[in-house]
């Protein structure tokens, strides 16, 4: 993605200590982060400081985005350092402060760190290099064009002179900054930092157990806090024995907080406001958490009565018996269905899922003279800052937010509820506090991935071509609007490729909070549409890979979709064909085409593709199913096209390995609700992806001449249907509802035996 001239403004200056500071401002364009994250970058035109060079040559680079394991804190400075020609091993990296005016777009989400930063961060580095070179040229009275740079030095080949960046930094800071758009960036062939595996900047601290995460924050005089809320979202406190809790060992303060209904403000996730609850404060977290048992809290929680997983299931299945509201229409599906030689119909279902970041939600807050200072493991620091200010009724400039490394994010930390709670408790308690949720609170108060339900219908010609594709999806609504993370439209291939398509939508009102889970919507819709696509291949008596390729190639003549208003690139089917062909080759696909025996009894291979978060990914899973329906994924082959270069290969491969294994885990997971409260309470209640179930993963990047894009999400959606399709190949059981359990496989086999 190119950066427009308007976006970059440059400033130079020196610190009191004589260091050169290069500031860049980005004028926002209100660009939307993809996949439900919404508009992230908002207008701002002032300066942010990205690099600082001290007289001794020390280079400090700012990482503006949070790191939750996806490697942004390492990658963003790599982009600057490459064009600066800094010595990577001598670079210091710091988190930028959360400041939307100076750093504009600061978030982790939507696999957007690469697309958002690839061009502008390199221009930061190139501008820094340009003024350093000019300063050296002035000193040596030579032409800047005769100088080169390498690893923190400016060199003059003709005279053999060289000078360290630190020695010319102060001079450079007095020069007029160049127009960043006029700077020539390197040809990627010249890269010495990008394209090479660079270990994470926090790795040593992680391995040595040094304090690093939000939960490790300590500020002077800090106390520990828990915030006890109703298990039914939004329920108000009726009564509680605050005295009994106050009498518990180690407890110093107990008070109730009136709920504040959501108000206006906040851009991405939550609106300002706070749940009704009770704060318990003391000097040791275990003691304050134990004191909650003395509260005997009662809640006005009748509002949860109707919100039951079983109720949702039966309501949805009833809705699927009639038509929904038309969401997308292409051609006349009904007519095409009527004309089809073969019609296939199925109902699919996916469950609600929790995030379960391993670091439970936490936040440290300290009251200041006019406001509050906050240390938070958050994916959206500026959104949190906004809603804290609005909830407390103070100026946003009086809220300081320090980003902390996140012990996992997966979309959970887009929602800054924990930040608001910590700020309110610190202000009420008039003391610095660390709020830490026990795991039970984390499970009970998530912004869950909502489940959904689908009736699918397709019509095939006598030659096995898909003529019609109909999907009626049931999702959830809140205040009359589709819930966050509950989107039913995605770039799923069948609807894009079929000549006629209609998507209908029905919504069930819910009070249960929802949000975005890694590869939101796609992580559910991939299973639905790519499993059904596999059913169509079977109905057409075609090999699943060949069936997909034939339909994709048939669409080459016409574009599948227009770019969206936010400038999201549309589905380029040629890119998907390439990765699908490659993954078939790499996995040895074709040795068990339809009609042939699988390689071994009970072993099957399944395939799926998905276009998610700008990445094109095709995957093949090899799955073993035993006589009791117990399944095990042995290996997954991945081919991904995310552009022309893999910027940090070790992290890129790790993101794919993790996404694939997590995706296999999503096949096993489910959270259910009973009268508005989560049934599961802690990790023991979930089937978690653990070491023995983690498959081998083969990762291959197919490099193409397209803008580089992110990898946090795209590799996750395809593995879910690939495994389900492999189960079918292994034993004939077509599983249309997740979680994928041995019981469902055995039931499907029994049905198979009957027919």
């Amino acid at each position, binding site marked *: 993605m190119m950066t427009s001239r308007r976006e970059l403004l440059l400033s130079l200056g020196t610190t009191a200590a004589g260091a050169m500071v290069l500031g860049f401002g980005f004028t926002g364009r209100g660009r939307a982060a993809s996949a439900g994250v919404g508009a992230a970058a908002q207008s701002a035109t002032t300066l942010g400081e990205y690099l600082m060079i001290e007289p001794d040559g020390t280079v400090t680079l700012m990482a503006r985005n949070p790191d939750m394991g996806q490697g942004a804190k390492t990658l963003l400075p790599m982009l600057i350092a490459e064009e600066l020609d800094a010595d990577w091993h001598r670079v210091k990296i710091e988190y930028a402060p959360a400041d939307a005016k100076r750093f504009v777009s600061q978030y982790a989400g939507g696999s957007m760190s690469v697309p958002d930063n690839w061009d502008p961060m390199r221009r930061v580095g190139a501008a820094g290099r340009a003024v350093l070179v000019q300063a050296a040229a002035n000193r040596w009275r030579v032409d800047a064009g005769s100088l080169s740079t390498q690893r923190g030095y400016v060199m003059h080949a003709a005279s053999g002179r060289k000078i360290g960046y630190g020695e010319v930094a102060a001079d450079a800071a007095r020069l007029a900054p160049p127009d960043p758009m006029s700077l020539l960036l390197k040809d990627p062939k010249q890269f010495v930092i990008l394209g090479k595996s660079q270990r994470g900047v926090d790795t040593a601290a992680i391995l040595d157990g040094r304090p690093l995460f939000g939960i490790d924050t300590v500020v002077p005089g800090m106390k520990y806090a828990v915030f006890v809320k109703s298990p039914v979202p939004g329920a108000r406190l009726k009564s509680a024995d605050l005295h009994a809790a106050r009498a518990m060992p180690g407890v110093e303060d107990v008070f109730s907080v009136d709920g504040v209904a959501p108000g206006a403000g906040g851009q991405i996730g939550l609106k300002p406001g706070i749940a009704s609850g009770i704060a318990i404060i003391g000097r040791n977290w275990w003691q304050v958490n134990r004191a909650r048992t003395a509260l005997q809290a009662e809640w006005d929680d009748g509002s949860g009565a109707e919100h039951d997983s079983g109720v949702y299931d039966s309501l949805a299945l009833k809705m699927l018996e009639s038509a929904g509201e038309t969401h997308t229409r292409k051609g006349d599906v009904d007519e095409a269905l009527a004309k089809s030689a073969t019609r296939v119909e199925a109902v699919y279902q996916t469950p609600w899922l929790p995030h379960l970041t*391993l670091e439970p939600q936490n936040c440290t807050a300290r009251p200041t003279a006019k406001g509050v200072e906050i240390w938070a493991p958050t994916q959206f620091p500026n959104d949190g800052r906004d809603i804290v200010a609005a909830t407390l009724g103070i100026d946003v400039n009086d809220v300081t937010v320090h980003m902390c490394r996140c012990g996992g994010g997966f979309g959970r930390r887009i929602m800054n509820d924990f930040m608001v709670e910590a700020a309110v408790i610190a202000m009420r308690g008039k003391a610095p506090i660390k709020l830490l949720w026990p*795991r039970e609170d984390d499970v009970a108060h998530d912004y869950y991935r909502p489940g959904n339900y689908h009736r699918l219908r397709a019509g095939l010609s006598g030659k096995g071509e898909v003529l019609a594709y109909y999907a009626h999806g049931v999702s959830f609504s809140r205040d009359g609007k589709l819930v966050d993370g509950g989107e039913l439209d995605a770039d799923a291939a069948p609807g894009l490729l079929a000549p006629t398509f209609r998507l209908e939508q029905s919504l069930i009102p819910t009070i249960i909070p929802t949000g975005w889970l890694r590869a939101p919507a796609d992580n559910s819709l991939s299973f639905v549409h790519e499993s059904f696509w596999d059913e169509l291949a079977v109905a057409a008596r075609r090999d699943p890979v060949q069936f997909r390729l034939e339909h994709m190639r048939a669409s080459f003549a016409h574009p599948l979709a227009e770019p969206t208003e936010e400038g999201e690139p549309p589905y380029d089917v040629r890119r998907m064909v390439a990765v699908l062909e490659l993954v078939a080759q790499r996995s040895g696909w074709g040795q068990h085409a339809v009609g042939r025996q699988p390689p071994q009894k009970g072993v099957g291979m399944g395939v799926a593709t998905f276009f998610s978060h700008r990445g094109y990914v095709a995957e093949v899973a090899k799955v073993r199913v035993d006589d009791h329906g117990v399944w095990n994924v042995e290996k997954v082959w991945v081919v991904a096209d995310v552009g022309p270069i893999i910027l940090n290969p070790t992290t890129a491969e790790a993101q794919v390995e993790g996404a694939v294994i997590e995706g296999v885990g999503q096949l096993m997971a489910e959270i259910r609700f009973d009268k508005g409260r989560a049934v599961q309470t802690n*990790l023991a209640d979930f089937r978690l992806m653990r070491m023995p179930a983690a498959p081998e993963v083969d990762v291959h990047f197919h490099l193409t001449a397209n803008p580089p894009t992110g990898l946090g999400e795209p590799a996750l959606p395809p593995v879910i249907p690939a495994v389900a399709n492999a189960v079918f190949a292994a034993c004939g059981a077509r599983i249309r509802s997740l979680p994928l359990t041995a019981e469902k496989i055995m039931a499907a086999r029994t049905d198979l035996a009957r027919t």
Partner: protein
Amino acid sequence: MIQLSVNGKRVAIDADADMPLLWVLRDEIGLKGTKFGCGVAQCGACTVHLDGKPVRSCVTLVGSVGSRRVTTVEALTSTPQGRAVRAAWEKLDVAQCGYCQAGQMMAAAGLLAANARPSDADIDAAMQGNFCRCSTYKRIRAAIKTAAGIDPADHRGAA
């Protein structure tokens, strides 16, 4: 006062005997490397060694520790297995978010101290109590083999 030996140092703690060792380490002694994940011995993030053997510190009451030596991730490299584990974790760039890795490394060092050449099945058995939400299992497995000086390739899917 409760007397403990933590990473080779004697410390005296004024805490309830029923306080889990995890919270003594984190909030009383200030060693933040040992992590809280679930509080019910289901995730392994809080794994430390007692006399060289991995235990879940979130369910180990401090009063039950007695004279046993407590070793946390901060002293991982005080044993040859711990040094090999840390080096392999760094070489293979195992960590993603990194939150579970203290527990993973403590469990791995405990495994290697008891079994110098673990098979894939041995690794599964020793490590299945350590949950990694980022799913870094592929690299954890390879890093354990690397630390043990055996071929890190994964051949489980080759059939």
